[in-house]
């Protein structure tokens, strides 16, 4: 596909001062190819959760960018992430979704790899290779760095990348909102069995920008609000909490992560939630109480949709999920959705939430369905010659963000909406494409709010 004219990312395609971003970046095949090299082969990507591989030998086949990877726990209990491709002739070595294995044996010529990635079995090692094959060099390709953050597993292919903590920057505490317990204890999250995977015909950045904090599209969900699927039988979710809170658009500009954040009033208890199920309501009432006891002022922070650059979405409250937007060509995205509960929540609570989660999110989710329709047809309508000449419009709240005394990052307090977060998402996107080194990337100016 030809492109409309020349570009330089920061100056041309992504114009933060005017809040205008070229449609080209969503539909152009050359840009897509650059993204694979510059973003997905460098950035930290979410791979899964340790609760999916509790025991030595357990594995879960995941995805990083376009590629299949194996998340597994070796015999000693150490967690690894490997490219799911044999070093001999490339065959996919693990073809089940998840399970437990002593070794991964390649179907083609039978090389086998330990759960630590080492090449442990080579048929006819002596006869075919005169025992000269250097097995140490031909183990599974392992990620350059791996991090286990409160049970969530992250990895990068780039040895030069900063540590995951540095990569998160000030965003750490918003990821905590996802992974810590409802009652405020650290890292209580557990993945409900079964990761949803489905294909959406749009560029991967449509869902990414949506979760970075597009609160402006609420209107698109009016049909589900009318149907009333929330856990109290009304609307999409329990809104009591939000109604009494301040709403912030928060982003970490030099890192590219964003979230919406609610701040509860210091003095007021939010109205009860989960009124459709007394047991659940009571459980959460208790958790909220505990959380305030344990966390104090910090318990006033309540998460909402967020995006860790480039393609991991967070949603720490209702419904509590994480998502991955895996590129499958410029025009297609494979969406993955993990659903979370606290591991020691009562079974009734887990079941109630499970039902609620899947009627809200994913391809049968009455809310997310409408999002995907928008991403699909916004993408389609942006690929034409004339369409590509006109930028998208990201001007809501332009110039409104600033620093906050307590909350890290650039913060816009806006009860309705601001497009600050998508703007910063694309700022970071442009930096990845423009900047060849991590020195530059970690030093990127906090320009153009």
């Amino acid at each position: 596909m030809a492109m409309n004219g020349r570009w330089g990312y920061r100056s041309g395609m992504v114009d933060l001062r005017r809040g205008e971003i070229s449609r080209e970046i969503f539909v152009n095949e050359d840009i897509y190819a650059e993204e694979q090299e510059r973003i997905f082969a460098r950035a930290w990507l979410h791979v899964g959760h340790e609760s999916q591989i509790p025991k030595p030998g357990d594995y879960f086949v995941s995805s990083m960018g376009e590629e299949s990877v194996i998340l597994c726990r070796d015999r000693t209990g150490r967690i690894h992430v490997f490219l799911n491709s044999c070093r001999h002739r490339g065959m996919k070595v693990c073809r089940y979704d998840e399970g437990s294995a002593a070794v991964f044996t390649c179907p083609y010529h039978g090389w086998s790899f330990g759960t630590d990635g080492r090449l442990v079995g080579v048929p006819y090692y002596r006869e075919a290779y005169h025992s000269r094959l250097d097995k140490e060099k031909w183990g599974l390709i392992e990620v350059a760095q791996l991090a286990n953050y409160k049970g969530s597993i992250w990895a990068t292919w780039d040895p030069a990348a900063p540590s995951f903590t540095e990569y998160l920057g000030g965003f750490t505490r918003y990821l905590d909102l996802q992974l810590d317990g409802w009652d405020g204890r650290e890292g209580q999250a557990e993945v409900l069995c079964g990761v949803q995977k489905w294909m959406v015909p749009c560029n991967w950045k449509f869902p990414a920008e949506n979760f970075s904090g597009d609160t402006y599209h609420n209107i698109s969900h009016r049909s589900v609000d009318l149907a009333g699927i929330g856990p109290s039988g009304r609307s999409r979710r329990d809104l009591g909490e939000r109604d009494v809170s301040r709403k912030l658009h928060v982003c970490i500009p030099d890192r590219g992560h964003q979230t919406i954040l609610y701040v509860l009033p210091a003095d007021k208890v939010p109205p009860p939630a989960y009124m459709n199920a007394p047991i659940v309501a009571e459980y959460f009432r208790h958790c909220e109480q505990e959380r305030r006891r344990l966390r104090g002022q910090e318990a006033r922070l309540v998460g909402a949709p967020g995006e860790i650059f480039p393609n991991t979405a967070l949603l720490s409250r209702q419904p509590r999920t994480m998502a991955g937007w895996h590129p499958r060509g410029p025009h297609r995205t494979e969406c993955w959705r993990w659903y979370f509960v606290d591991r020691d929540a009562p079974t009734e609570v887990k079941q109630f939430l499970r039902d609620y989660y899947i009627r809200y999110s994913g391809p049968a989710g009455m809310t997310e369905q409408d999002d995907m329709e928008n991403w699909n047809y916004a993408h389609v309508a942006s690929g034409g010659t004339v369409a590509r000449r006109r930028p998208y419009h990201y001007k809501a709240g332009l110039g409104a963000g600033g620093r906050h005394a307590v909350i890290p990052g650039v913060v816009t307090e806006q009860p309705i909406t601001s497009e600050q977060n998508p703007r910063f998402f694309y700022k970071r996107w442009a930096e990845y494409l423009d900047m060849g080194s991590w020195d530059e990337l970690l030093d990127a100016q906090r320009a153009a709010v």
Partner: protein
Amino acid sequence: MSKPGVTPERLAYLDLLREIEDFFFNEADLLDERDYDRWLELLAEDIVYWMPMRKNVSYANRHDDVTAENDIAWFHDDKDTLRKRVKQIQTGIHWADEPISRVSHLITNVRLREPRPSLAEGDQATTKCRFIVYRNRLEDETDLLVGRREDTLVRTGGQLKIARRKIILDQSVLLAKNLTMFF
């Protein structure tokens, strides 16, 4: 079977099977013609409407190829949730299905899991069938969803109702962008 006389039990069986087919075909017509209110009437009040996800497993684990009853699923709805799905479509602003999609339900291979001559008031029977749900919408968006269904039917007030539906879709990664249709 070699003599032309057909036993009354066998006749009753033929009758019951045809009744069940008619029931499913009528259901398909209601769905494809978007007469959702009458479709809801076919569902028992305590219906369990479940579409688990599929897993890639080995031959040895072939009976473990769907997510378990308490795991994440595509659907696990009670009647109230199904009513809300209907209500959402009926708002006319459920964009994922607005403009309305063109959908055809093809139901084949209908059989009783255990053959029986009749289904008395209050009795239940489980059927098996295959389905194709074809969806086309807007210009060229097209999905073909294929699989099998296990339905438990109950006779209530003389009428058949669906007490439980288990939908086994033959996809692991869902190749459709959403599931706005019923199965």
